[in-house]
């Protein structure tokens, strides 16, 4: 893959931080944006900003067409059967909450069980805790082994006819673990449960085919797939979305309103109350097109090369321990250094122009599982280079020397 050509499409990568060239290794938190995504935003506001769907003027028609084109692109991106299975949200968190507040309230009752895993982001824990508390349902957790993989045999033993939902992360944001989702979904379906996949980290790295893996819901965020913040996608199987109650009420989501009764709109508009995030949704299409044109396989090959190189280089640093050694991982390395607090490492790396993430990565139960306050996480994207990993390693040696 021509990384240098790709890098040039990301204007932010040429900036300096504290007098040093930026090394951006916080891609799992948010990816940088290629020029065409930035251009899509300014082009929309410069040429055809209008409210969508009901306007009969030219601008409204153009904006509506671009917005709905984004839905088709998102549909293809994850292999959904129909465009109305694509609900635009603010991001993964809103997608999960939407399911909890609609499908969850309708289908979860007292004594029912929801299964999540020990490596969930708080966004895939808290909505279910709220629901369980409200309904008197029970939250069960799939344990994580020392390598940072799900204990699949224990998962199977948690499943029963009480299980109504399994909501798990496809790829762990803290460890990089790729979970065996097909196996998880098939086992859940055999038990009669529905499955939601948190795709926040997987959508950018993995080939997603929601029909092939047969998940019931899939949520991901735009900003982690080189798109803008504030937009995301919730996929749901059509028959499920149709049978679920509405989420937020307002404009867009109605067909007819009288003071006596409101008739709700059809999918997907039923779940898109109010003026949506038109500009960012249109720019999300530019991001998804960018990924598809670059080629997910090519991106993955490059990222896996970076992962293997970084793993080898980092492991050679005395006192450094990698947290998360799953057999299948995305391009992310989480680590701790003996006798050093992750935050101190983050501060000193920042002074050397290197952006990593330190802390619990919104997975406090997982950190507790490993008995650590947090990790230092370097996560790689298609534009990262081996030279940047070399810079990280050099800076880490210097950082450790300063701190010990």
């Amino acid at each position: 893959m021509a990384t240098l050509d790709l890098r040039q499409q990301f204007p932010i990568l040429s900036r300096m931080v504290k007098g040093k060239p930026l090394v951006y290794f916080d891609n799992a938190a948010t990816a940088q944006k290629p020029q065409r995504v930035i251009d899509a935003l300014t082009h929309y506001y410069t040429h055809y900003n209008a409210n969508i769907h009901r306007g009969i003027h030219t601008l409204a028609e153009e904006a509506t067409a671009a917005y709905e084109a984004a839905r088709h692109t998102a549909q293809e991106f994850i292999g959904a059967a129909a465009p109305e299975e694509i609900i635009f949200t603010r991001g993964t968190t809103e997608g999960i909450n939407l399911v909890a507040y609609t499908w969850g309230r309708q289908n979860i009752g007292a004594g029912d069980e929801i299964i999540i895993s020990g490596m969930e982001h708080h966004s895939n824990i808290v909505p279910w805790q709220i629901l369980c508390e409200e309904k008197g349902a029970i939250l069960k957790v799939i344990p994580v082994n020392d390598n940072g993989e799900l204990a699949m045999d224990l998962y199977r033993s948690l499943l029963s006819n009480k299980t109504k939902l399994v909501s798990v992360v496809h790829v762990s944001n803290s460890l990089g673990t790729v979970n065996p989702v097909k196996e998880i979904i098939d086992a859940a379906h055999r038990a009669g449960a529905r499955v939601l996949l948190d795709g926040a980290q997987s959508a950018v790295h993995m080939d997603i085919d929601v029909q092939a893996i047969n998940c019931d819901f899939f949520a991901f965020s735009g900003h982690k797939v080189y798109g803008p913040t504030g937009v995301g996608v919730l996929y749901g199987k059509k028959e499920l979305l149709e049978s679920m109650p509405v989420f937020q009420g307002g404009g867009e989501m109605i067909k007819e309103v009288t003071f006596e009764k409101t008739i709700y709109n059809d999918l997907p508009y039923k779940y898109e109350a109010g003026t949506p995030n038109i500009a960012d949704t249109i720019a999300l299409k530019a991001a998804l097109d960018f990924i598809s044109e670059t080629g997910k396989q090519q991106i993955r090959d490059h990222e896996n090369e970076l992962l293997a190189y970084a793993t080898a280089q980092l492991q050679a640093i005395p006192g450094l321990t990698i947290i998360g050694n799953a057999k299948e991982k995305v391009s992310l390395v989480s680590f701790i250094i003996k006798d050093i607090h992750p935050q101190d490492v983050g501060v000193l790396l920042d002074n050397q122009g290197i952006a990593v993430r330190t802390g619990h990565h919104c997975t406090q139960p997982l950190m507790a599982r490993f008995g650590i306050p947090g990790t230092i996480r370097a996560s790689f994207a298609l534009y990262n280079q081996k030279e940047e990993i070399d810079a990280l390693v050099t800076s880490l040696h210097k950082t450790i020397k300063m701190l010990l």
Partner: protein
Amino acid sequence: MDIKPIKDIEKDIIEDFGLFDSWEDKYEYIIDMGKKLAVLEDEHKLDENKIKGCQSTVWLVASYEDGRIFFKADSDAVIVKGLISMLIRVLSGHTPAEIIEARLDFIGEIGMMTHLAQTRSNGLLSMIKQMKNYAIAFQAIDNQQIDHK
């Protein structure tokens, strides 16, 4: 007991930092101060003394003797500890009124403002607030005692 005014101690720190011309020197100095900070005994590391940041934790205890407040603190992150050590150097041993009025401009002057801005991650800003709250509380106790006399 002759105690240097807060402003003068701040000036000393700013002058110390003026001698450093690289970020390495600056942080090595802070890290060194962090390591030298007097140990906070485990008996003080209680939840009620804990100021929890999103990443690191700060413990702060205060005592009041002859109209002056003395602080002791600790953190699990050494850079935060170094910054704590400077705050203790500046504020500890002063009267409640002096501590309440302290502007602590030195933090910005030595280029460490970013650490305060990270309110969610390190609890440093909450610690300064807590130091001032102690001062307000001790002052209130004094005022009550004066009222009673």
